[in-house]
């Protein structure tokens, strides 16, 4: 399967996938994303639900058994991990290129 078809990830998707390296339910993911992005990315409930549905459909995340009857748990799937790694590689490459062509490191 060609995993590059999923790239580039949107900022929202990237943060959700980063957050889902550990299993979490919807609201926890929202809080985690906000925390990871130091408050810059706030995903509202409707957007979050749609994004999770899309990721499930693409099999980048899975549902894992939850003992809460009203909250499903989501977690990054194996494919999801591979896609996330590819995306990070892609972003690293961009950073390197930017550095090599005159952008100072850290900017």
């Amino acid at each position: 399967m060609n995993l590059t078809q999923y790239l580039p990830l949107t900022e929202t998707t990237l943060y959700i996938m980063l957050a889902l390296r550990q299993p979490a339910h919807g609201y926890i993911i929202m809080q985690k994303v906000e925390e990871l992005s130091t408050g810059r990315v706030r995903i509202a409930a409707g957007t979050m639900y749609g994004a999770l549905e899309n990721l499930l459909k693409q099999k980048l995340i899975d549902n894992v058994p939850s003992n809460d009857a009203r909250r499903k748990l989501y977690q990054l799937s194996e494919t999801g991990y591979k896609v996330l790694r590819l995306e990070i590689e892609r972003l690293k490459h961009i950073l390197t290129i930017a550095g090599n062509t005159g952008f100072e490191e850290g900017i």
Partner: protein
Amino acid sequence: MKQFKLFIDFTKEEQYLNEQAKKGYKFFKYSCLGFYHFVNAAPADTNYRIDYHTFKNQYDFNNYITMFEDSGWRHVYGTKSSGGQYFLPIIEDAPSDIFSDVTSKAQRYIRYQRTCILWFVLLFIYSTSFLLINKPGLSAPIFLTPGLWEKQGLRFWFAFLFELPFALMRVLPAFLFLAGSIYNGCLAIMARKSYKNFLSQNKEQA
């Protein structure tokens, strides 16, 4: 109080519910074909938000509602398969919208359109296959009373009117389904238009 209204555009529907609340009519239920149910309440400034989703099972539905409740939105109305899901903010400093980007907000029109297309296809297949297979009035008689059309005067009218409800029951459902199919086809086209309108109005934010 009940009011009949048809909305394709969710933004206009949200505005309508807010205006009703300002007049002292609190929305509490939507029933099929477009009836909005209100109770009298103190006039209030509200921020209704509408999403469109149908769910495979109760667990999915509960999970969805809880995700909203956890983040400050009360589920006002909507069932597992009703599609329209109505929300009001629970807390004062709740975020102003249930969507945080234009793309995901536009997707609700697409989900609505998909439901309309599904009904269009189902009702179309059902009604046309019924009409094509049975050919009411052509290969299959609509009235089954033997010798009905040879009867005269009062006897004819008595037999005719007696069978009419049964005859209608034989053909009317197919035509109603056909009408329903066309109706849903129109809704699907209008939903698509609303989707495009919404995107073009919000282009600068996308």
